């Protein structure tokens, strides 16, 4: 049985107990690094994202509200937003062609097929399964791979406007299904 208590460790971070941050790091860094790496696709950049995110977690531990959600989701969100901001910023600076990213070899498993087997995951799986395959893929490309609308459109060979509409309708369908 898993007894690691993320919420208590975060509370200890808020009390400036650095050993709690270390325990959170040891516990979650491998997972969070995978999350960052899948989005930024470069180990050096992913390492920077994890470094910055853990300093963020330390600084913001006192603002975490356990009534608002789980600590693990909170930490993963900090990592994802940092990774996403890096991708959007560098895409603008380098004027990255969305087609180039779409052509990247996708060697990682489809997140849907690899969904962890928890109860929460089962629910999400069932709800995602109700979406048409391309619409489902649009959601997972955005969430897991950090693709932009344009990159999703290029990858799925669909018009940009169509992809935007898919996402919006899929979100409403998922909200209904998951609530």
């Amino acid at each position, binding site marked *: 049985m898993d007894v690691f208590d993320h919420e208590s460790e975060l509370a200890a971070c808020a009390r*400036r107990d*650095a050993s709690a941050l270390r325990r959170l790091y040891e516990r979650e860094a491998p997972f969070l690094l*995978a999350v960052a790496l899948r989005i930024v696709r470069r180990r050096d950049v992913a390492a920077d994202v994890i470094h910055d995110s853990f300093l963020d977690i330390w600084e913001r531990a006192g*603002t975490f509200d356990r009534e608002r959600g789980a600590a693990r989701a909170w930490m993963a969100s900090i990592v994802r937003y940092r990774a996403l901001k890096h991708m959007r910023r560098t895409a603008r600076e380098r004027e990255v062609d969305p087609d180039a990213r779409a052509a990247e070899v996708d060697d990682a498993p489809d*997140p849907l097929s690899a969904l962890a087997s928890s109860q929460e995951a089962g629910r999400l799986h069932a709800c995602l399964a109700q979406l048409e395959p391309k619409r489902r893929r649009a959601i997972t490309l955005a969430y*897991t791979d950090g693709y932009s609308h344009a990159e999703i459109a290029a990858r799925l060979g669909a018009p940009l406007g169509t992809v935007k509409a898919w996402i919006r309708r899929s979100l409403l369908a998922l909200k209904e299904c998951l609530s």
Partner: protein
Amino acid sequence: MIPSAPNDRDILAGEYVLGLLEPEVVREVELALPADGDLRRRVAFWEERLLPLAGGLRPETPDPEIWTRIERDLAGLRARRVIPSPIRERAMYRVWRSAGVWQGATAIATAAAIVLALLPGGLRPRTDGPTRFFALLQTRDSSGAEAGPGWLIQVATDGTVRSIPLASVEPGQGRSLQLWTLWDQARGPVSLGVLPPGGSVRLPPDRLGVIGSGQLFEITLEPEYGSPTGRPTGRVLFIGRANASTTQSL
């Protein structure tokens, strides 16, 4: 513009979590989140419900160098407070939330007056004519969490702009803080300049082209000599909107 219809708010929150919003809209959302509990709940819904999508990723062993850097920078953070303690932030946040001070500009004016009253004498702005507008900038982290008031921007009737930090801020080696204002989404943020060490500055009246209620001010972390692109490139550290100063008879 943050929508009011529940479905539109769910979509906005979902697109925010998926990372599909334009940077300007991300800023709007991050600006709205601290005062909008409903939107925070909708964002948290997606953050938590979509997390299993990452559950299937194969964990990666981090290079030991990452923790070494974290530990080193942590020591720096603890030695030299960059941002007020999260505990204090949270207490401050509760006071602000419970007082409902974000409900109206008058309330915000009162809150700013309290902050001003608490400032040591030396930090109080020397006015260049009465204050016409002020913006109390909230300390902001990368993911949109509010961390209490961190900066005050004062615009005098003659257009003089004063930048007054409420906490000591050290951008770090090779970095600087840059002040921006935004009055037109289409034009985007306009630089008011790189702030000197310490962050306190008085800008001449001609620097600020336009000023009006709701005008956005923000301070971003930039390279030493400022953003190379003329647009903010680093994370937003402080952000807030201008409020018209009210006249009170005492």
